[in-house]
């Protein structure tokens, strides 16, 4: 039985691990290498690296960080930020990524999802969705770290993405991100309901109760965790033990 995956999310700007609120107001936390290695040793199920400025400036500073991380971290590594083409994907895979998360470029040209999926397998193609609540039970897709509106409905876009070949959805609530006030569980549950592929809930984890809620009521397949880990508010082993204690199926380390 594969349980809920607990995935530290490391947002990157230049050479630094950073953390923001609502994907903005970024503060430097430290050296991503050091944090990645620590989470690996503490038993993280996977890691996510997101380059927060790549799509703004059309460059990708992540490659070097990924390749150094892959030298001594042997769990699945999802990498995103500024990925625009099959060649970009190949370069990141070569550097050490296992899965590639794409947001802005997939919205601009949805065929890219199918191209990546056919070239490297759907397990490699993670559709990253930044969602903002626009009405009760309705969310709009944003790009460029929550800056640009797209007019797309999140639930419809997630379904379309899976049809086009996405093997997983990384679902970030821009409203909750960095607030430590809990996940947007309604959002997660609305997307999980219609998606036959795994959904990673991201944005808002501040306590164990939030995790339990998004796994229970939200039925998330995996949970991205950033702030509480980076600032060591809750240790990884406490999170894992707390989840197991609440009856959530997680890996035993």
């Amino acid at each position, binding site marked *: *039985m*594969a349980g809920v995956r607990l995935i530290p999310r490391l947002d990157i700007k230049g050479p630094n691990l950073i953390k923001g609120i609502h994907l903005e107001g970024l503060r430097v936390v430290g050296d991503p290498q050091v944090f990645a290695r620590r989470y690996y040793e503490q038993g993280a199920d996977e890691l996510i690296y997101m380059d927060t400025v790549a799509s703004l400036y059309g460059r990708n500073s992540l490659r070097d960080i990924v390749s150094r991380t892959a030298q001594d971290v042997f769990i699945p590594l999802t990498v995103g930020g500024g990925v625009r083409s099959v060649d970009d994907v190949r370069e990141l895979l070569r550097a050490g990524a*296992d899965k590639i998360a794409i947001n802005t470029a997939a919205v601009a040209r949805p065929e890219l999802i199918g191209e990546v999926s056919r070239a490297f397998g759907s397990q490699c193609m993670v559709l990253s969705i930044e969602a903002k609540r626009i009405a009760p039970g309705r969310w709009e897709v944003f790009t460029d770290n929550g800056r640009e509106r797209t007019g797309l409905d999140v639930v419809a876009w997630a379904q379309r993405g899976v049809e086009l070949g996405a093997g997983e959805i990384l679902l970030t609530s821009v409203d909750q991100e960095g607030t430590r006030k809990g996940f947007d569980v309604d959002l997660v549950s609305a997307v999980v309901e219609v998606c036959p592929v795994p959904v990673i809930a991201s944005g808002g984890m501040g306590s164990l109760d939030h995790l339990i809620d998004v796994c229970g009521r939200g039925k998330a397949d995996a949970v991205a965790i950033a702030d509480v880990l980076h600032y060591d508010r809750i240790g990884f082993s406490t999170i894992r033990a707390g989840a197991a204690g609440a009856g959530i199926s997680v890996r*035993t380390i």
Partner: protein
Amino acid sequence: MSERVTIVDYGLGNIFSVARAVEHFGVDVLLSDDPCVLGEASRLILPGVGAFAIGMQGLRERALIEPLRKFAASGRPLLGICLGMQMLLSGSEEFGDHEGLGIIPGLVAPVSGQTATGAILKVPHVGWSPLHNPLFGNSWDGSILAGLPEACEAYFVHSYTAVPADDAHRLADTWYGNCRISAAVRKNNVYGCQFHPEKSGPAGLKIIENFLSVV
């Protein structure tokens, strides 16, 4: 320990992670799709992700099918990972019937994605699942799983599973809902892992390390 491992590079999926895990032990990696190079290899890894038919087509186009069968018959260590394991079997039901390498008797079938109570599970099976030594299966002693604790967990991502015809070729099983997954197989010098040892943390590295010294 082996000085060099050859990884079959037939154009499918991400072979770099496998290479890095091998290099972690100071062992040289050679990536090749040349039948002559594979024929002379001392130790071979057949990786792969994606669809069975496309994987077999990749091998066929490079004229690698017979060299791989010969390599397996020669007694030298061979490890298939994920799709690479599935292709060791006789054939697959994925998108029609397709012939496999036929090195290990049995078929490849879809993961059913149901619990015992009939609830639906998502397919693919993605995540960490425990490795169990099957009742009538192969012993872990002296194999790639030597020294690992029963029920240690490994990282899986797949929609199909091998179904070995002979239980004796099963090395490890796991369960996804009520679907029995053949997690690892062994027939003499030929091994397969449905999970990704190169992505399974310290336990996975131990499996890679074991493969570098199995005889």
